[in-house]
Protein backbone atom coordinates (compact mmCIF):
# COMPACT_ATOMS: atom_id res chain seq x y z
CA UNK A 1 0.00 0.00 0.00
CA UNK A 2 1.17 3.48 -0.86
CA UNK A 3 0.11 5.95 1.79
CA UNK A 4 -0.39 9.65 1.33
CA UNK A 5 2.69 10.07 3.48
CA UNK A 6 4.73 8.00 1.05
CA UNK A 7 3.49 10.03 -1.94
CA UNK A 8 4.60 13.11 -0.05
CA UNK A 9 8.08 11.62 0.22
CA UNK A 10 8.15 10.72 -3.51
CA UNK A 11 6.93 14.20 -4.47
CA UNK A 12 9.62 15.72 -2.30
CA UNK A 13 12.30 13.50 -3.85
CA UNK A 14 11.18 14.44 -7.35
CA UNK A 15 10.80 18.10 -6.38
CA UNK A 16 7.14 18.63 -7.22
CA UNK A 17 5.04 20.79 -4.87
CA UNK A 18 1.62 19.23 -4.19
CA UNK A 19 -1.53 20.08 -2.32
CA UNK A 20 -3.12 17.69 0.12
CA UNK A 21 -5.82 16.80 -2.40
CA UNK A 22 -3.25 16.03 -5.06
CA UNK A 23 -1.32 13.79 -2.68
CA UNK A 24 -4.52 11.85 -1.94
CA UNK A 25 -5.39 11.52 -5.64
CA UNK A 26 -1.91 10.36 -6.61
CA UNK A 27 -1.91 7.87 -3.71
CA UNK A 28 -4.99 6.27 -5.26
CA UNK A 29 -3.40 6.23 -8.73
CA UNK A 30 -0.11 4.82 -7.50
CA UNK A 31 -1.86 2.01 -5.63
CA UNK A 32 -3.71 1.03 -8.78
CA UNK A 33 -0.49 1.16 -10.82
CA UNK A 34 1.49 -0.79 -8.20
CA UNK A 35 -1.19 -3.50 -8.15
CA UNK A 36 -0.76 -3.98 -11.87
CA UNK A 37 3.03 -3.90 -11.71
CA UNK A 38 3.03 -6.57 -9.01
CA UNK A 39 1.58 -8.89 -11.68
CA UNK A 40 5.18 -9.21 -12.87
CA UNK A 41 5.81 -11.37 -9.79
CA UNK A 42 4.25 -14.36 -11.53
CA UNK A 43 7.07 -14.45 -14.11
CA UNK A 44 9.91 -16.79 -13.21
CA UNK A 45 13.06 -14.70 -13.59
CA UNK A 46 15.40 -16.78 -11.49
CA UNK A 47 18.15 -17.29 -14.06
CA UNK A 48 17.58 -14.20 -16.13
CA UNK A 49 20.30 -11.64 -16.75
CA UNK A 50 19.53 -8.00 -16.17
CA UNK A 51 19.44 -6.09 -19.44
CA UNK A 52 19.26 -2.35 -19.70
CA UNK A 53 19.41 -1.89 -23.45
CA UNK A 54 17.17 -3.16 -26.22
CA UNK A 55 19.96 -3.44 -28.77
CA UNK A 56 23.58 -4.48 -28.43
CA UNK A 57 25.50 -1.24 -28.32
CA UNK A 58 28.50 -0.64 -30.48
CA UNK A 59 31.67 0.99 -29.24
CA UNK A 60 30.91 4.71 -29.15
CA UNK A 61 34.37 6.13 -28.54
CA UNK A 62 35.99 8.87 -30.59
CA UNK A 63 39.31 10.64 -30.83
CA UNK A 64 39.76 13.18 -28.08
CA UNK A 65 39.86 16.26 -30.27
CA UNK A 66 38.51 19.72 -29.58
CA UNK A 67 35.50 20.65 -31.66
CA UNK A 68 33.39 23.77 -31.67
CA UNK A 69 30.41 24.03 -29.32
CA UNK A 70 27.43 26.39 -29.10
CA UNK A 71 28.30 30.00 -28.31
CA UNK A 72 27.54 30.88 -24.67
CA UNK A 73 24.87 33.42 -25.61
CA UNK A 74 23.01 30.73 -27.57
CA UNK A 75 23.17 28.39 -24.59
CA UNK A 76 21.89 31.12 -22.26
CA UNK A 77 19.15 32.52 -24.50
CA UNK A 78 16.47 30.19 -23.08
CA UNK A 79 17.48 30.73 -19.45
CA UNK A 80 14.86 32.39 -17.24
CA UNK A 81 17.67 34.51 -15.80
CA UNK A 82 21.32 34.84 -16.80
CA UNK A 83 24.04 37.20 -15.57
CA UNK A 84 27.61 37.61 -16.86
CA UNK A 85 27.51 34.35 -18.78
CA UNK A 86 26.07 32.38 -15.85
CA UNK A 87 22.65 30.95 -15.04
CA UNK A 88 21.17 32.85 -12.13
CA UNK A 89 19.03 31.10 -9.50
CA UNK A 90 17.48 32.16 -6.17
CA UNK A 91 19.48 31.90 -2.97
CA UNK A 92 20.95 28.41 -2.33
CA UNK A 93 22.64 28.88 1.08
CA UNK A 94 21.86 31.31 3.84
Amino acid at each position, binding site marked *: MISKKEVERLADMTRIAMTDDELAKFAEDLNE*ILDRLMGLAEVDTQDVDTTYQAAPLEEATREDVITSSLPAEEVLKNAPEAVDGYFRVPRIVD
Partner: protein
Amino acid sequence: MKLCNLPAHRLIEMLSTKEISAEELAQDLLRNIQAREDQVKAYITIDDAENILAKAKAADAKRDGASEPFLGLPMAIKDNICTTELPTTCASKMLEDYHSPFAATVCEKLEQAGLIFVGKTNLDEFGMGSSTENSAFYPTHNPVDPTRVPGGSSGGSAAAVAAGEAIWALGTDAGGSVRQPAAFCGVVGLKPTYGRLSRYGLISFAPSFDHIGLLTRDVADCALLLRLLAGHDPLDATSSRSKVADYPNALGKEIAGLTVGVPAEFLQSNLQGEIKGAIHDAIQALKDAGAVVQEISLPHLGHGPSAYYALSCAEASSNLGRFDGVRYGLRDESAQDVTTMFKNTRRQGFGPEVKRRILTGAMVLVKERREECYLKAVKVRQLIKEDFHRVLDDVDLILGPTTPTTAFKLGTTNLDPALVYDADRFTVAANLAGVPAMNLPFGFDGAGLPIGLQLIGRPFGEETLFQVGSFLEECAGSGKNI
Protein backbone atom coordinates in the same frame (compact mmCIF):
# COMPACT_ATOMS: atom_id res chain seq x y z
CA MET B 1 -7.60 14.31 -55.82
CA LYS B 2 -5.99 17.39 -54.35
CA LEU B 3 -2.21 17.66 -54.57
CA CYS B 4 -1.86 17.79 -50.81
CA ASN B 5 -3.40 14.31 -50.50
CA LEU B 6 -1.04 12.59 -52.94
CA PRO B 7 1.82 10.41 -51.72
CA ALA B 8 5.26 12.03 -51.79
CA HIS B 9 6.67 9.71 -54.45
CA ARG B 10 3.92 10.87 -56.87
CA LEU B 11 4.60 14.52 -56.03
CA ILE B 12 8.34 14.02 -56.49
CA GLU B 13 7.66 12.74 -60.02
CA MET B 14 5.35 15.64 -60.81
CA LEU B 15 7.83 18.18 -59.43
CA SER B 16 10.79 16.75 -61.32
CA THR B 17 8.93 16.86 -64.66
CA LYS B 18 7.63 20.35 -63.81
CA GLU B 19 4.05 19.16 -64.10
CA ILE B 20 3.55 21.10 -60.85
CA SER B 21 5.65 23.59 -58.93
CA ALA B 22 6.53 23.48 -55.24
CA GLU B 23 4.73 26.81 -54.91
CA GLU B 24 1.46 25.34 -56.25
CA LEU B 25 1.87 22.41 -53.89
CA ALA B 26 2.48 24.70 -50.92
CA GLN B 27 -0.53 26.84 -51.82
CA ASP B 28 -2.75 23.79 -52.10
CA LEU B 29 -1.54 22.51 -48.74
CA LEU B 30 -2.00 25.88 -47.04
CA ARG B 31 -5.57 26.15 -48.39
CA ASN B 32 -6.25 22.70 -47.03
CA ILE B 33 -4.82 23.64 -43.61
CA GLN B 34 -7.07 26.70 -43.66
CA ALA B 35 -10.08 24.49 -44.34
CA ARG B 36 -9.35 21.65 -41.92
CA GLU B 37 -7.09 22.76 -39.10
CA ASP B 38 -9.81 24.42 -37.01
CA GLN B 39 -11.45 21.04 -36.63
CA VAL B 40 -8.41 18.73 -36.59
CA LYS B 41 -5.94 20.85 -34.54
CA ALA B 42 -2.98 18.79 -35.67
CA TYR B 43 -0.45 21.54 -35.10
CA ILE B 44 0.87 23.48 -32.12
CA THR B 45 2.82 25.90 -34.33
CA ILE B 46 2.30 26.58 -38.04
CA ASP B 47 4.95 28.63 -39.81
CA ASP B 48 3.85 31.86 -41.54
CA ALA B 49 2.28 31.21 -44.95
CA GLU B 50 4.63 33.81 -46.46
CA ASN B 51 7.66 32.02 -45.14
CA ILE B 52 6.45 28.64 -46.43
CA LEU B 53 5.66 30.09 -49.87
CA ALA B 54 9.02 31.87 -50.06
CA LYS B 55 10.78 28.57 -49.34
CA ALA B 56 8.67 26.83 -51.99
CA LYS B 57 9.58 29.48 -54.56
CA ALA B 58 13.26 29.14 -53.68
CA ALA B 59 12.94 25.37 -54.16
CA ASP B 60 11.41 25.90 -57.61
CA ALA B 61 14.24 28.24 -58.59
CA LYS B 62 16.85 25.75 -57.40
CA ARG B 63 15.32 22.67 -59.02
CA ASP B 64 17.39 21.01 -61.70
CA GLY B 65 15.53 17.96 -63.02
CA ALA B 66 15.40 15.06 -60.55
CA SER B 67 18.79 15.62 -58.90
CA GLU B 68 17.32 16.81 -55.58
CA PRO B 69 14.05 14.87 -55.38
CA PHE B 70 12.83 16.19 -52.01
CA LEU B 71 13.18 19.90 -52.82
CA GLY B 72 10.07 21.81 -51.77
CA LEU B 73 8.07 18.99 -50.16
CA PRO B 74 6.07 20.38 -47.19
CA MET B 75 6.14 18.22 -44.07
CA ALA B 76 5.48 18.26 -40.34
CA ILE B 77 7.68 17.62 -37.28
CA LYS B 78 6.42 16.38 -33.93
CA ASP B 79 6.90 19.10 -31.34
CA ASN B 80 9.33 17.13 -29.17
CA ILE B 81 11.98 17.12 -31.92
CA CYS B 82 14.22 20.19 -31.95
CA THR B 83 14.10 22.67 -34.80
CA THR B 84 15.84 26.05 -34.84
CA GLU B 85 13.38 28.23 -36.74
CA LEU B 86 10.22 27.03 -35.01
CA PRO B 87 9.73 26.62 -31.23
CA THR B 88 9.81 23.15 -29.58
CA THR B 89 7.26 22.86 -26.77
CA CYS B 90 6.74 19.12 -26.12
CA ALA B 91 3.08 20.21 -25.67
CA SER B 92 4.09 21.27 -22.16
CA LYS B 93 3.73 24.53 -20.28
CA MET B 94 7.25 23.80 -19.10
CA LEU B 95 8.65 24.52 -22.59
CA GLU B 96 5.95 26.81 -23.98
CA ASP B 97 8.49 29.42 -25.13
CA TYR B 98 11.47 27.19 -25.82
CA HIS B 99 13.50 27.88 -28.97
CA SER B 100 16.17 25.25 -29.38
CA PRO B 101 19.63 26.61 -30.17
CA PHE B 102 20.34 23.49 -32.25
CA ALA B 103 18.39 21.24 -34.61
CA ALA B 104 17.92 17.48 -34.35
CA THR B 105 20.18 15.55 -36.72
CA VAL B 106 17.16 14.20 -38.61
CA CYS B 107 15.83 17.74 -39.06
CA GLU B 108 19.17 18.92 -40.39
CA LYS B 109 19.15 16.10 -42.92
CA LEU B 110 15.63 17.01 -43.99
CA GLU B 111 16.46 20.68 -44.43
CA GLN B 112 19.61 19.86 -46.36
CA ALA B 113 17.49 17.75 -48.68
CA GLY B 114 15.27 20.79 -49.25
CA LEU B 115 12.12 19.77 -47.39
CA ILE B 116 9.98 22.55 -45.92
CA PHE B 117 8.77 22.38 -42.31
CA VAL B 118 5.14 23.51 -42.29
CA GLY B 119 4.89 23.35 -38.51
CA LYS B 120 5.26 21.43 -35.28
CA THR B 121 2.59 18.91 -34.40
CA ASN B 122 0.62 18.27 -31.23
CA LEU B 123 1.37 15.38 -28.86
CA ASP B 124 0.64 14.08 -25.41
CA GLU B 125 2.86 16.16 -23.12
CA PHE B 126 6.46 14.90 -23.47
CA GLY B 127 5.08 11.90 -25.41
CA MET B 128 3.23 10.48 -22.41
CA GLY B 129 -0.12 9.17 -23.57
CA SER B 130 -2.04 7.41 -26.30
CA SER B 131 -4.68 9.94 -27.34
CA THR B 132 -3.02 13.39 -27.65
CA GLU B 133 -5.51 14.51 -24.98
CA ASN B 134 -2.61 14.99 -22.55
CA SER B 135 -1.37 17.97 -24.55
CA ALA B 136 -1.17 21.00 -22.25
CA PHE B 137 -2.72 23.09 -25.04
CA TYR B 138 -5.65 21.23 -26.67
CA PRO B 139 -6.50 17.77 -27.97
CA THR B 140 -6.13 16.83 -31.64
CA HIS B 141 -9.15 15.32 -33.40
CA ASN B 142 -9.11 12.31 -35.72
CA PRO B 143 -9.58 13.57 -39.30
CA VAL B 144 -11.55 10.42 -40.17
CA ASP B 145 -14.09 11.12 -37.40
CA PRO B 146 -13.55 14.31 -35.36
CA THR B 147 -15.43 12.92 -32.34
CA ARG B 148 -12.61 10.41 -31.94
CA VAL B 149 -8.99 10.66 -30.83
CA PRO B 150 -6.18 10.45 -33.38
CA GLY B 151 -4.21 8.22 -31.01
CA GLY B 152 -0.95 9.30 -29.46
CA SER B 153 1.42 10.43 -28.56
CA SER B 154 2.24 11.36 -32.21
CA GLY B 155 -1.47 12.14 -32.79
CA GLY B 156 -0.79 15.52 -34.38
CA SER B 157 1.66 14.06 -36.90
CA ALA B 158 -0.69 11.19 -37.84
CA ALA B 159 -3.66 13.55 -38.15
CA ALA B 160 -1.67 16.04 -40.27
CA VAL B 161 -0.66 13.31 -42.74
CA ALA B 162 -4.17 11.81 -42.85
CA ALA B 163 -5.85 15.22 -43.32
CA GLY B 164 -3.53 16.39 -46.10
CA GLU B 165 -1.99 19.03 -43.83
CA ALA B 166 1.52 17.62 -44.39
CA ILE B 167 2.95 15.31 -47.04
CA TRP B 168 4.60 13.20 -44.39
CA ALA B 169 5.72 13.70 -40.79
CA LEU B 170 8.22 12.73 -38.13
CA GLY B 171 6.92 11.26 -34.90
CA THR B 172 8.47 9.54 -31.90
CA ASP B 173 7.66 6.10 -30.52
CA ALA B 174 8.59 4.91 -27.02
CA GLY B 175 5.78 2.36 -26.61
CA GLY B 176 3.70 2.64 -29.79
CA SER B 177 3.44 6.41 -30.18
CA VAL B 178 3.94 6.29 -33.96
CA ARG B 179 2.19 3.02 -34.81
CA GLN B 180 -0.96 3.46 -32.70
CA PRO B 181 -1.89 6.92 -34.07
CA ALA B 182 -0.99 5.71 -37.57
CA ALA B 183 -3.49 2.86 -37.07
CA PHE B 184 -6.19 5.20 -35.74
CA CYS B 185 -5.77 7.71 -38.59
CA GLY B 186 -5.16 5.22 -41.42
CA VAL B 187 -1.57 6.05 -42.39
CA VAL B 188 1.69 4.09 -42.50
CA GLY B 189 3.75 4.40 -39.30
CA LEU B 190 7.25 3.00 -38.87
CA LYS B 191 9.27 2.58 -35.71
CA PRO B 192 12.65 1.52 -37.10
CA THR B 193 15.18 -0.65 -35.27
CA TYR B 194 16.65 0.92 -32.12
CA GLY B 195 19.75 2.76 -33.34
CA ARG B 196 18.69 3.07 -36.99
CA LEU B 197 17.80 6.79 -36.78
CA SER B 198 19.76 9.34 -34.81
CA ARG B 199 17.91 10.64 -31.77
CA TYR B 200 20.12 13.68 -31.27
CA GLY B 201 17.68 16.55 -30.70
CA LEU B 202 14.76 14.37 -29.64
CA ILE B 203 13.63 15.58 -26.20
CA SER B 204 13.75 12.21 -24.61
CA PHE B 205 11.48 10.78 -21.95
CA ALA B 206 12.68 7.16 -21.76
CA PRO B 207 16.01 6.80 -23.60
CA SER B 208 16.11 3.00 -23.76
CA PHE B 209 12.68 3.05 -25.47
CA ASP B 210 12.54 6.34 -27.42
CA HIS B 211 12.76 6.13 -31.20
CA ILE B 212 12.19 8.62 -33.97
CA GLY B 213 9.55 7.25 -36.33
CA LEU B 214 7.99 8.03 -39.68
CA LEU B 215 4.36 8.71 -40.65
CA THR B 216 3.62 8.53 -44.37
CA ARG B 217 0.78 8.06 -46.87
CA ASP B 218 2.07 4.74 -48.15
CA VAL B 219 4.83 2.17 -47.82
CA ALA B 220 6.84 3.53 -50.75
CA ASP B 221 7.05 6.96 -49.07
CA CYS B 222 8.16 5.32 -45.85
CA ALA B 223 11.01 3.51 -47.62
CA LEU B 224 12.13 6.74 -49.32
CA LEU B 225 12.10 8.71 -46.08
CA LEU B 226 13.97 6.04 -44.11
CA ARG B 227 16.68 5.89 -46.78
CA LEU B 228 17.09 9.66 -46.51
CA LEU B 229 17.38 9.72 -42.71
CA ALA B 230 19.05 6.45 -41.67
CA GLY B 231 22.72 6.26 -40.76
CA HIS B 232 25.24 6.65 -37.99
CA ASP B 233 25.43 9.93 -36.11
CA PRO B 234 28.46 10.66 -33.91
CA LEU B 235 26.22 12.92 -31.79
CA ASP B 236 24.06 9.95 -30.72
CA ALA B 237 26.06 7.23 -28.95
CA THR B 238 23.22 4.74 -29.45
CA SER B 239 23.04 5.22 -33.21
CA SER B 240 24.17 2.23 -35.21
CA ARG B 241 26.92 1.87 -37.75
CA SER B 242 25.19 -1.01 -39.51
CA LYS B 243 24.78 -0.62 -43.25
CA VAL B 244 21.83 1.40 -44.56
CA ALA B 245 19.95 -0.64 -47.15
CA ASP B 246 18.46 0.71 -50.36
CA TYR B 247 15.00 0.40 -48.85
CA PRO B 248 12.88 1.29 -51.91
CA ASN B 249 14.39 -1.75 -53.68
CA ALA B 250 12.40 -3.99 -51.35
CA LEU B 251 9.05 -2.66 -52.59
CA GLY B 252 7.05 -5.12 -54.65
CA LYS B 253 9.62 -7.89 -54.26
CA GLU B 254 8.18 -11.41 -54.54
CA ILE B 255 6.95 -12.70 -51.18
CA ALA B 256 6.66 -16.40 -52.12
CA GLY B 257 8.78 -18.48 -49.75
CA LEU B 258 8.81 -15.93 -46.94
CA THR B 259 7.79 -17.22 -43.53
CA VAL B 260 5.35 -15.13 -41.52
CA GLY B 261 4.61 -15.89 -37.87
CA VAL B 262 1.35 -14.98 -36.18
CA PRO B 263 1.58 -14.97 -32.37
CA ALA B 264 -1.20 -16.99 -30.78
CA GLU B 265 -1.15 -14.48 -27.91
CA PHE B 266 -2.22 -11.70 -30.28
CA LEU B 267 -5.28 -13.50 -31.62
CA GLN B 268 -6.42 -15.04 -28.34
CA SER B 269 -6.54 -11.74 -26.55
CA ASN B 270 -9.53 -9.46 -26.38
CA LEU B 271 -9.57 -7.93 -29.84
CA GLN B 272 -12.23 -6.10 -31.88
CA GLY B 273 -13.83 -8.66 -34.21
CA GLU B 274 -13.21 -6.68 -37.38
CA ILE B 275 -9.50 -6.36 -36.56
CA LYS B 276 -9.27 -10.10 -36.05
CA GLY B 277 -11.06 -10.51 -39.39
CA ALA B 278 -8.53 -8.23 -41.10
CA ILE B 279 -5.66 -10.34 -39.78
CA HIS B 280 -7.27 -13.50 -41.13
CA ASP B 281 -7.75 -11.80 -44.52
CA ALA B 282 -4.09 -10.76 -44.54
CA ILE B 283 -3.02 -14.31 -43.64
CA GLN B 284 -5.08 -15.68 -46.54
CA ALA B 285 -3.65 -13.15 -48.99
CA LEU B 286 -0.09 -14.02 -47.88
CA LYS B 287 -0.75 -17.76 -48.28
CA ASP B 288 -2.30 -17.25 -51.71
CA ALA B 289 0.86 -15.46 -52.78
CA GLY B 290 3.04 -18.36 -51.65
CA ALA B 291 4.21 -17.22 -48.22
CA VAL B 292 4.30 -19.72 -45.38
CA VAL B 293 2.20 -18.58 -42.44
CA GLN B 294 2.65 -20.31 -39.10
CA GLU B 295 1.44 -19.85 -35.57
CA ILE B 296 4.14 -18.82 -33.12
CA SER B 297 4.26 -18.08 -29.42
CA LEU B 298 5.65 -15.09 -27.53
CA PRO B 299 4.82 -16.35 -24.04
CA HIS B 300 5.83 -13.26 -22.06
CA LEU B 301 4.01 -10.77 -24.25
CA GLY B 302 1.18 -10.28 -21.74
CA HIS B 303 3.65 -8.78 -19.27
CA GLY B 304 4.95 -6.27 -21.83
CA PRO B 305 2.80 -3.31 -20.73
CA SER B 306 3.76 -3.66 -17.06
CA ALA B 307 7.46 -4.04 -17.81
CA TYR B 308 7.26 -1.09 -20.18
CA TYR B 309 5.40 1.08 -17.70
CA ALA B 310 7.77 0.37 -14.80
CA LEU B 311 10.92 0.93 -16.85
CA SER B 312 9.79 3.90 -18.92
CA CYS B 313 8.51 5.72 -15.82
CA ALA B 314 11.76 5.00 -14.00
CA GLU B 315 13.69 6.50 -16.90
CA ALA B 316 11.29 9.45 -17.14
CA SER B 317 11.58 10.30 -13.46
CA SER B 318 15.31 10.67 -13.85
CA ASN B 319 15.24 12.22 -17.35
CA LEU B 320 12.73 14.95 -16.61
CA GLY B 321 14.86 16.11 -13.68
CA ARG B 322 16.43 18.56 -16.11
CA PHE B 323 13.28 20.69 -16.08
CA ASP B 324 14.08 22.71 -12.99
CA GLY B 325 13.65 26.33 -14.04
CA VAL B 326 17.39 26.96 -14.28
CA ARG B 327 18.62 26.54 -17.84
CA TYR B 328 15.46 26.76 -19.94
CA GLY B 329 11.71 26.77 -19.78
CA LEU B 330 9.33 27.89 -17.10
CA ARG B 331 10.46 29.30 -13.74
CA ASP B 332 8.37 30.15 -10.72
CA GLU B 333 9.49 33.70 -9.95
CA SER B 334 7.88 33.92 -6.51
CA ALA B 335 10.17 31.49 -4.67
CA GLN B 336 12.80 32.91 -2.36
CA ASP B 337 15.03 29.85 -2.24
CA VAL B 338 16.14 27.42 -4.90
CA THR B 339 14.40 24.26 -3.65
CA THR B 340 11.04 25.98 -3.48
CA MET B 341 11.71 27.38 -6.95
CA PHE B 342 12.32 23.82 -8.28
CA LYS B 343 9.17 22.49 -6.63
CA ASN B 344 6.87 25.30 -7.69
CA THR B 345 8.25 25.36 -11.23
CA ARG B 346 7.64 21.63 -11.66
CA ARG B 347 4.21 21.90 -10.07
CA GLN B 348 3.18 24.60 -12.57
CA GLY B 349 5.01 23.26 -15.60
CA PHE B 350 4.00 19.58 -15.65
CA GLY B 351 0.51 18.24 -16.36
CA PRO B 352 -1.11 15.46 -14.27
CA GLU B 353 0.00 12.54 -16.48
CA VAL B 354 3.64 13.67 -16.42
CA LYS B 355 3.52 14.02 -12.64
CA ARG B 356 1.92 10.59 -12.31
CA ARG B 357 4.70 8.99 -14.35
CA ILE B 358 7.49 10.79 -12.51
CA LEU B 359 6.01 9.63 -9.19
CA THR B 360 5.57 6.11 -10.54
CA GLY B 361 9.20 6.10 -11.63
CA ALA B 362 10.35 7.22 -8.18
CA MET B 363 8.06 4.61 -6.60
CA VAL B 364 9.63 1.68 -8.52
CA LEU B 365 13.17 2.95 -7.94
CA VAL B 366 13.13 3.51 -4.18
CA LYS B 367 15.21 1.06 -2.20
CA GLU B 368 12.22 -0.85 -0.80
CA ARG B 369 10.81 -1.57 -4.24
CA ARG B 370 13.81 -1.56 -6.54
CA GLU B 371 14.21 -5.34 -6.50
CA GLU B 372 10.56 -6.38 -6.85
CA CYS B 373 9.53 -3.66 -9.33
CA TYR B 374 12.39 -2.14 -11.26
CA LEU B 375 14.83 -5.05 -11.46
CA LYS B 376 11.96 -7.47 -12.00
CA ALA B 377 10.81 -5.43 -15.00
CA VAL B 378 14.38 -5.34 -16.33
CA LYS B 379 14.44 -9.15 -16.27
CA VAL B 380 11.01 -9.50 -17.84
CA ARG B 381 12.22 -7.22 -20.60
CA GLN B 382 15.10 -9.60 -21.19
CA LEU B 383 12.65 -12.53 -21.46
CA ILE B 384 10.50 -10.67 -23.98
CA LYS B 385 13.58 -9.81 -25.98
CA GLU B 386 14.64 -13.47 -25.97
CA ASP B 387 11.12 -14.50 -27.07
CA PHE B 388 11.43 -12.26 -30.11
CA HIS B 389 14.94 -13.32 -31.01
CA ARG B 390 14.01 -16.99 -30.77
CA VAL B 391 10.91 -16.56 -32.94
CA LEU B 392 12.69 -14.35 -35.48
CA ASP B 393 15.29 -17.10 -36.00
CA ASP B 394 12.49 -19.17 -37.55
CA VAL B 395 10.26 -16.62 -39.24
CA ASP B 396 11.10 -13.63 -41.44
CA LEU B 397 8.35 -11.48 -40.04
CA ILE B 398 5.69 -11.33 -37.32
CA LEU B 399 2.15 -10.26 -38.21
CA GLY B 400 -0.49 -9.03 -35.77
CA PRO B 401 -2.77 -6.13 -34.91
CA THR B 402 -1.42 -2.68 -34.04
CA THR B 403 -4.24 -1.89 -31.60
CA PRO B 404 -6.98 -3.90 -29.82
CA THR B 405 -9.70 -1.52 -31.09
CA THR B 406 -10.08 1.18 -33.73
CA ALA B 407 -10.01 4.86 -32.65
CA PHE B 408 -11.94 5.55 -29.44
CA LYS B 409 -14.02 8.63 -28.56
CA LEU B 410 -12.44 11.78 -27.16
CA GLY B 411 -12.93 12.15 -23.43
CA THR B 412 -13.10 8.44 -22.62
CA THR B 413 -9.49 7.76 -21.64
CA ASN B 414 -9.40 9.99 -18.61
CA LEU B 415 -12.31 8.04 -17.16
CA ASP B 416 -10.48 4.77 -17.46
CA PRO B 417 -6.67 4.87 -17.29
CA ALA B 418 -6.64 1.10 -17.84
CA LEU B 419 -7.94 1.66 -21.38
CA VAL B 420 -4.81 3.56 -22.31
CA TYR B 421 -2.55 1.08 -20.56
CA ASP B 422 -4.17 -1.61 -22.70
CA ALA B 423 -4.12 0.43 -25.89
CA ASP B 424 -0.35 -0.10 -25.99
CA ARG B 425 -0.66 -3.84 -25.47
CA PHE B 426 0.50 -4.89 -28.96
CA THR B 427 3.00 -2.12 -29.61
CA VAL B 428 5.19 -1.96 -26.48
CA ALA B 429 6.79 -5.33 -27.16
CA ALA B 430 8.74 -4.03 -30.17
CA ASN B 431 10.17 -1.21 -28.03
CA LEU B 432 11.11 -3.61 -25.25
CA ALA B 433 12.91 -5.78 -27.80
CA GLY B 434 14.26 -2.96 -30.01
CA VAL B 435 12.99 -4.63 -33.19
CA PRO B 436 11.49 -2.65 -36.12
CA ALA B 437 7.71 -2.51 -36.43
CA MET B 438 5.30 -0.86 -38.84
CA ASN B 439 1.61 -0.05 -38.90
CA LEU B 440 -0.04 -0.80 -42.21
CA PRO B 441 -3.59 0.46 -42.89
CA PHE B 442 -5.72 -2.53 -43.89
CA GLY B 443 -9.37 -1.73 -44.46
CA PHE B 444 -12.02 -0.24 -42.18
CA ASP B 445 -14.41 -1.37 -39.47
CA GLY B 446 -18.20 -1.08 -39.62
CA ALA B 447 -18.06 2.54 -38.42
CA GLY B 448 -15.67 3.44 -41.25
CA LEU B 449 -12.65 3.71 -38.96
CA PRO B 450 -9.23 2.56 -40.20
CA ILE B 451 -7.86 -0.83 -39.10
CA GLY B 452 -4.09 -1.25 -38.74
CA LEU B 453 -1.96 -4.35 -39.11
CA GLN B 454 1.39 -4.50 -37.37
CA LEU B 455 4.43 -6.02 -39.08
CA ILE B 456 7.42 -6.73 -36.83
CA GLY B 457 10.80 -7.63 -38.30
CA ARG B 458 14.33 -8.66 -37.37
CA PRO B 459 16.74 -6.03 -36.06
CA PHE B 460 17.76 -3.91 -39.08
CA GLY B 461 15.32 -5.94 -41.21
CA GLU B 462 13.22 -2.94 -42.31
CA GLU B 463 13.45 -4.17 -45.92
CA THR B 464 11.24 -7.16 -45.10
CA LEU B 465 8.65 -4.81 -43.58
CA PHE B 466 8.61 -2.79 -46.81
CA GLN B 467 8.51 -5.92 -48.98
CA VAL B 468 5.52 -7.48 -47.20
CA GLY B 469 3.97 -4.09 -46.41
CA SER B 470 3.85 -3.08 -50.07
CA PHE B 471 2.27 -6.45 -50.96
CA LEU B 472 -0.47 -6.16 -48.30
CA GLU B 473 -1.03 -2.51 -49.18
CA GLU B 474 -1.78 -3.56 -52.73
CA CYS B 475 -4.22 -6.22 -51.48
CA ALA B 476 -5.98 -3.61 -49.34
CA GLY B 477 -6.04 -1.10 -52.21
CA SER B 478 -7.48 -3.56 -54.71
CA GLY B 479 -10.14 -4.67 -52.23
CA LYS B 480 -8.84 -8.19 -52.64
CA ASN B 481 -9.59 -10.29 -49.58
CA ILE B 482 -10.76 -7.37 -47.49
